Protein backbone atom coordinates (compact mmCIF):
# COMPACT_ATOMS: atom_id res chain seq x y z
CA UNK A 1 0.00 0.00 0.00
CA UNK A 2 1.58 3.33 -1.01
CA UNK A 3 2.06 5.98 1.63
CA UNK A 4 -0.26 8.98 1.50
CA UNK A 5 1.40 11.70 -0.64
CA UNK A 6 1.31 14.19 2.20
CA UNK A 7 3.30 11.80 4.35
CA UNK A 8 6.01 11.61 1.70
CA UNK A 9 6.15 15.38 1.48
CA UNK A 10 6.41 15.64 5.24
CA UNK A 11 9.21 13.11 5.26
CA UNK A 12 11.15 14.86 2.51
CA UNK A 13 10.79 18.27 4.12
CA UNK A 14 11.28 17.45 7.78
CA UNK A 15 12.75 13.98 8.36
CA UNK A 16 16.38 15.17 8.17
CA UNK A 17 15.82 17.83 10.83
CA UNK A 18 13.90 15.43 13.05
CA UNK A 19 16.59 12.79 12.61
CA UNK A 20 19.37 15.18 13.67
CA UNK A 21 17.36 16.43 16.63
CA UNK A 22 16.53 12.90 17.73
CA UNK A 23 20.05 11.61 17.27
CA UNK A 24 21.35 14.46 19.42
CA UNK A 25 18.67 13.68 21.99
CA UNK A 26 18.77 9.87 22.15
CA UNK A 27 22.39 9.41 21.12
CA UNK A 28 21.38 6.10 19.61
CA UNK A 29 20.66 5.43 15.95
CA UNK A 30 18.21 2.58 16.61
CA UNK A 31 16.28 4.64 19.12
CA UNK A 32 16.23 7.54 16.69
CA UNK A 33 14.77 5.30 14.01
CA UNK A 34 12.15 3.92 16.39
CA UNK A 35 10.98 7.36 17.46
CA UNK A 36 10.97 8.65 13.90
CA UNK A 37 8.91 5.62 12.87
CA UNK A 38 6.53 6.33 15.72
CA UNK A 39 6.11 9.93 14.59
CA UNK A 40 5.30 9.05 10.98
CA UNK A 41 2.99 6.22 12.00
CA UNK A 42 1.09 8.69 14.13
CA UNK A 43 0.94 11.17 11.27
CA UNK A 44 -0.45 8.42 9.02
CA UNK A 45 -3.07 7.44 11.58
CA UNK A 46 -4.08 10.97 12.40
CA UNK A 47 -4.11 12.92 9.12
CA UNK A 48 -5.64 15.92 10.88
CA UNK A 49 -2.83 16.16 13.40
CA UNK A 50 -1.07 18.92 11.50
CA UNK A 51 -4.24 20.78 10.59
CA UNK A 52 -4.16 24.20 12.14
CA UNK A 53 -0.43 24.09 12.83
CA UNK A 54 0.99 27.48 11.90
CA UNK A 55 4.55 26.20 11.62
CA UNK A 56 4.82 22.55 10.52
CA UNK A 57 8.47 22.23 11.48
CA UNK A 58 7.95 23.69 14.95
CA UNK A 59 4.93 21.44 15.49
CA UNK A 60 6.85 18.35 14.36
CA UNK A 61 9.85 19.25 16.53
CA UNK A 62 7.53 19.53 19.50
CA UNK A 63 5.87 16.21 18.65
CA UNK A 64 9.30 14.63 18.25
CA UNK A 65 10.59 16.06 21.51
CA UNK A 66 7.57 14.73 23.42
CA UNK A 67 7.86 11.34 21.72
CA UNK A 68 11.57 11.18 22.53
CA UNK A 69 10.93 11.97 26.20
CA UNK A 70 8.23 9.28 26.34
CA UNK A 71 10.53 6.84 24.60
CA UNK A 72 13.37 7.49 27.03
CA UNK A 73 11.01 7.05 29.97
CA UNK A 74 9.67 3.79 28.57
CA UNK A 75 13.19 2.55 28.06
CA UNK A 76 13.81 3.30 31.70
CA UNK A 77 16.96 3.13 33.69
CA UNK A 78 17.81 -0.45 32.74
CA UNK A 79 20.06 0.67 29.90
CA UNK A 80 21.24 3.83 31.59
CA UNK A 81 24.85 2.82 31.87
CA UNK A 82 24.90 1.36 28.40
CA UNK A 83 23.49 4.63 27.08
CA UNK A 84 26.08 6.70 28.85
CA UNK A 85 28.75 4.60 27.20
CA UNK A 86 27.07 4.84 23.82
CA UNK A 87 26.64 8.61 24.11
CA UNK A 88 30.37 9.04 24.07
CA UNK A 89 30.75 6.93 20.94
CA UNK A 90 28.14 8.27 18.56
CA UNK A 91 28.71 11.35 16.45
CA UNK A 92 25.86 13.50 15.26
CA UNK A 93 28.06 15.27 12.70
CA UNK A 94 29.05 14.31 9.19
CA UNK A 95 32.41 12.61 8.80
CA UNK A 96 35.32 14.58 7.33
CA UNK A 97 38.61 13.51 5.84
CA UNK A 98 40.53 16.37 7.44
CA UNK A 99 41.75 14.98 10.80
CA UNK A 100 41.57 18.38 12.53
CA UNK A 101 38.01 18.95 11.44
CA UNK A 102 37.08 15.36 12.31
CA UNK A 103 38.67 15.76 15.76
CA UNK A 104 36.81 19.01 16.37
CA UNK A 105 33.48 17.47 15.36
CA UNK A 106 34.12 14.48 17.58
CA UNK A 107 34.90 16.74 20.51
CA UNK A 108 31.87 18.86 19.73
CA UNK A 109 29.66 15.79 19.66
CA UNK A 110 31.06 14.65 23.02
CA UNK A 111 30.61 18.10 24.51
CA UNK A 112 26.99 18.10 23.39
CA UNK A 113 26.48 14.66 24.90
CA UNK A 114 27.69 15.97 28.25
CA UNK A 115 25.02 18.65 28.34
CA UNK A 116 21.77 17.99 30.17
CA UNK A 117 19.03 16.99 27.72
CA UNK A 118 17.08 20.24 28.08
CA UNK A 119 20.14 22.40 27.36
CA UNK A 120 21.18 20.12 24.53
CA UNK A 121 17.78 20.48 22.89
CA UNK A 122 17.87 24.28 23.17
CA UNK A 123 21.41 24.46 21.76
CA UNK A 124 20.52 22.12 18.91
CA UNK A 125 17.42 24.08 17.89
CA UNK A 126 19.23 27.41 18.11
CA UNK A 127 22.39 26.42 16.25
CA UNK A 128 21.26 23.87 13.71
CA UNK A 129 17.60 24.72 13.23
CA UNK A 130 18.13 28.49 13.42
CA UNK A 131 15.15 28.73 15.75
CA UNK A 132 14.47 31.92 17.64
CA UNK A 133 14.06 31.66 21.41
CA UNK A 134 10.35 32.11 20.86
CA UNK A 135 10.28 29.11 18.53
CA UNK A 136 12.43 27.08 20.92
CA UNK A 137 10.07 27.97 23.75
CA UNK A 138 7.09 26.80 21.69
CA UNK A 139 8.79 23.60 20.55
CA UNK A 140 9.97 22.60 24.02
CA UNK A 141 6.90 23.95 25.82
CA UNK A 142 8.90 26.29 28.02
CA UNK A 143 9.01 30.05 28.54
CA UNK A 144 11.03 32.39 26.35
CA UNK A 145 13.39 33.21 29.23
CA UNK A 146 13.91 29.54 30.06
CA UNK A 147 14.74 28.82 26.43
CA UNK A 148 17.28 31.67 26.40
CA UNK A 149 18.88 30.67 29.68
CA UNK A 150 19.10 26.99 28.71
CA UNK A 151 20.84 27.95 25.50
CA UNK A 152 23.18 30.32 27.29
CA UNK A 153 24.16 27.77 29.95
CA UNK A 154 24.65 25.12 27.29
CA UNK A 155 26.76 27.24 24.98
CA UNK A 156 28.93 28.48 27.88
CA UNK A 157 29.64 24.93 28.98
CA UNK A 158 30.55 23.95 25.45
CA UNK A 159 32.76 26.98 25.03
CA UNK A 160 34.62 26.04 28.16
CA UNK A 161 34.82 22.40 27.19
CA UNK A 162 36.01 23.07 23.63
CA UNK A 163 38.27 26.04 24.34
CA UNK A 164 41.59 24.14 23.95
CA UNK A 165 40.76 22.50 20.64
CA UNK A 166 38.94 25.60 19.35
CA UNK A 167 41.94 27.83 20.06
CA UNK A 168 44.13 25.30 18.35
CA UNK A 169 42.24 25.15 15.06
CA UNK A 170 41.04 28.78 14.99
Amino acid at each position, binding site marked *: *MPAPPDLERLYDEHA*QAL*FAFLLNFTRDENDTRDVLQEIFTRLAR*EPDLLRGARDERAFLIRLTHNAAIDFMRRRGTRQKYHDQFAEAEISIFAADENPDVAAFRESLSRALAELPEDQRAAVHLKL*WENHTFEQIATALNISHNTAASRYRYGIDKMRERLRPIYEEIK
Partner: protein
Amino acid sequence: MKPDDFEKRLQNQPLRQIPTEWRAEILQSAASSPHPSRTMRRSVLSTINHQLSAVLWFNPKAWAGLAAIWVVIFALQFKSQNNSPMVAAASAPRPSTILMSLKDQQQTLAELMGNNQPNDADQTHRAAPKPHSERRRETVLI
Protein backbone atom coordinates in the same frame (compact mmCIF):
# COMPACT_ATOMS: atom_id res chain seq x y z
CA MET B 1 21.51 38.49 20.00
CA LYS B 2 24.17 37.98 17.35
CA PRO B 3 26.13 34.74 17.43
CA ASP B 4 29.84 35.10 18.12
CA ASP B 5 32.59 33.33 16.19
CA PHE B 6 32.39 30.25 18.35
CA GLU B 7 28.66 29.87 17.76
CA LYS B 8 29.09 30.50 14.05
CA ARG B 9 31.76 27.84 13.93
CA LEU B 10 29.44 25.35 15.58
CA GLN B 11 26.62 26.26 13.22
CA ASN B 12 28.82 25.52 10.25
CA GLN B 13 29.41 21.94 11.28
CA PRO B 14 27.24 19.76 9.05
CA LEU B 15 25.02 17.24 10.77
CA ARG B 16 24.88 13.59 9.84
CA GLN B 17 22.49 12.72 7.05
CA ILE B 18 19.53 10.46 7.63
CA PRO B 19 20.16 7.01 6.10
CA THR B 20 18.47 6.93 2.69
CA GLU B 21 17.04 3.45 3.17
CA TRP B 22 14.97 4.66 6.12
CA ARG B 23 12.62 6.61 3.87
CA ALA B 24 11.03 3.60 2.20
CA GLU B 25 10.98 1.59 5.43
CA ILE B 26 9.42 4.30 7.56
CA LEU B 27 6.85 5.39 4.99
CA GLN B 28 5.85 1.82 4.18
CA SER B 29 5.51 0.96 7.84
CA ALA B 30 3.52 4.14 8.52
CA ALA B 31 1.21 3.45 5.59
CA SER B 32 0.55 -0.10 6.71
CA SER B 33 -0.58 1.07 10.13
CA PRO B 34 -4.33 0.65 10.90
CA HIS B 35 -6.54 1.83 8.06
CA PRO B 36 -7.92 5.37 8.37
CA SER B 37 -11.53 4.10 8.05
CA ARG B 38 -11.07 2.10 11.24
CA THR B 39 -9.58 5.12 12.83
CA MET B 40 -12.52 7.17 11.52
CA ARG B 41 -15.03 4.74 13.06
CA ARG B 42 -13.18 4.93 16.31
CA SER B 43 -12.95 8.68 16.00
CA VAL B 44 -16.76 8.97 15.66
CA LEU B 45 -17.15 7.18 18.98
CA SER B 46 -14.39 9.21 20.50
CA THR B 47 -16.07 12.36 19.16
CA ILE B 48 -19.34 11.41 20.88
CA ASN B 49 -17.41 10.63 24.01
CA HIS B 50 -15.64 13.95 23.69
CA GLN B 51 -18.94 15.80 23.24
CA LEU B 52 -20.45 14.09 26.28
CA SER B 53 -17.35 14.83 28.26
CA ALA B 54 -17.60 18.47 27.22
CA VAL B 55 -21.18 18.60 28.50
CA LEU B 56 -20.46 16.75 31.72
CA TRP B 57 -16.94 18.00 32.13
CA PHE B 58 -17.43 19.95 35.32
CA ASN B 59 -18.48 17.03 37.51
CA PRO B 60 -19.60 13.67 36.19
CA LYS B 61 -20.32 12.51 39.76
CA ALA B 62 -22.78 15.36 40.19
CA TRP B 63 -24.65 14.26 37.07
CA ALA B 64 -24.65 10.66 38.24
CA GLY B 65 -26.03 11.77 41.62
CA LEU B 66 -28.71 13.85 39.92
CA ALA B 67 -29.72 10.90 37.75
CA ALA B 68 -29.93 8.68 40.84
CA ILE B 69 -32.18 11.22 42.58
CA TRP B 70 -34.48 11.28 39.56
CA VAL B 71 -34.67 7.50 39.57
CA VAL B 72 -35.65 7.54 43.26
CA ILE B 73 -38.28 10.23 42.60
CA PHE B 74 -39.81 8.24 39.76
CA ALA B 75 -39.80 5.09 41.84
CA LEU B 76 -41.58 6.83 44.72
CA GLN B 77 -44.11 8.41 42.39
CA PHE B 78 -44.84 5.08 40.74
CA LYS B 79 -45.32 3.45 44.11
CA SER B 80 -47.65 6.20 45.37
CA GLN B 81 -49.76 6.02 42.19
CA ASN B 82 -50.28 2.32 42.77
CA ASN B 83 -51.27 2.83 46.39
CA SER B 84 -53.48 5.94 46.08
CA PRO B 85 -56.82 4.26 45.03
CA MET B 86 -56.53 1.81 47.93
CA VAL B 87 -55.67 4.57 50.36
CA ALA B 88 -58.60 6.66 49.13
CA ALA B 89 -61.00 3.75 49.36
CA ALA B 90 -59.83 2.92 52.85
CA SER B 91 -60.02 6.46 54.16
CA ALA B 92 -63.38 7.44 52.54
CA PRO B 93 -66.34 7.50 55.08
CA ARG B 94 -69.56 5.59 54.42
CA PRO B 95 -72.56 7.51 52.96
CA SER B 96 -74.68 6.79 56.02
CA THR B 97 -72.04 8.32 58.26
CA ILE B 98 -71.97 11.41 56.09
CA LEU B 99 -75.74 11.76 56.30
CA MET B 100 -75.66 11.40 60.07
CA SER B 101 -72.99 14.06 60.44
CA LEU B 102 -74.88 16.38 58.11
CA LYS B 103 -78.02 16.03 60.23
CA ASP B 104 -76.02 16.74 63.37
CA GLN B 105 -74.58 19.85 61.82
CA GLN B 106 -78.02 21.08 60.70
CA GLN B 107 -79.41 20.51 64.18
CA THR B 108 -76.56 22.41 65.80
CA LEU B 109 -77.04 25.26 63.38
CA ALA B 110 -80.77 25.43 64.08
CA GLU B 111 -80.12 25.60 67.85
CA LEU B 112 -77.61 28.34 67.37
CA MET B 113 -80.03 30.31 65.22
CA GLY B 114 -82.76 29.96 67.86
CA ASN B 115 -80.57 31.18 70.75
CA ASN B 116 -79.05 34.07 68.95
CA GLN B 117 -82.23 35.90 67.92
CA PRO B 118 -81.82 39.66 68.66
CA ASN B 119 -83.91 40.98 71.69
CA ASP B 120 -85.85 44.26 71.90
CA ALA B 121 -83.44 45.98 74.27
CA ASP B 122 -80.70 45.72 71.73
CA GLN B 123 -83.03 47.04 69.08
CA THR B 124 -83.81 50.23 71.12
CA HIS B 125 -80.14 51.03 71.45
CA ARG B 126 -79.61 50.69 67.79
CA ALA B 127 -81.72 53.60 66.61
CA ALA B 128 -82.32 53.88 62.97
CA PRO B 129 -80.25 56.63 61.39
CA LYS B 130 -82.10 59.88 61.07
CA PRO B 131 -81.91 62.34 58.24
CA HIS B 132 -79.19 64.92 58.54
CA SER B 133 -81.69 67.79 58.81
CA GLU B 134 -83.27 66.27 61.98
CA ARG B 135 -79.91 65.77 63.61
CA ARG B 136 -79.11 69.41 63.11
CA ARG B 137 -82.46 70.38 64.66
CA GLU B 138 -81.75 68.30 67.79
CA THR B 139 -78.40 69.99 68.19
CA VAL B 140 -80.00 73.42 68.10
CA LEU B 141 -82.62 72.48 70.69
CA ILE B 142 -80.00 71.38 73.18
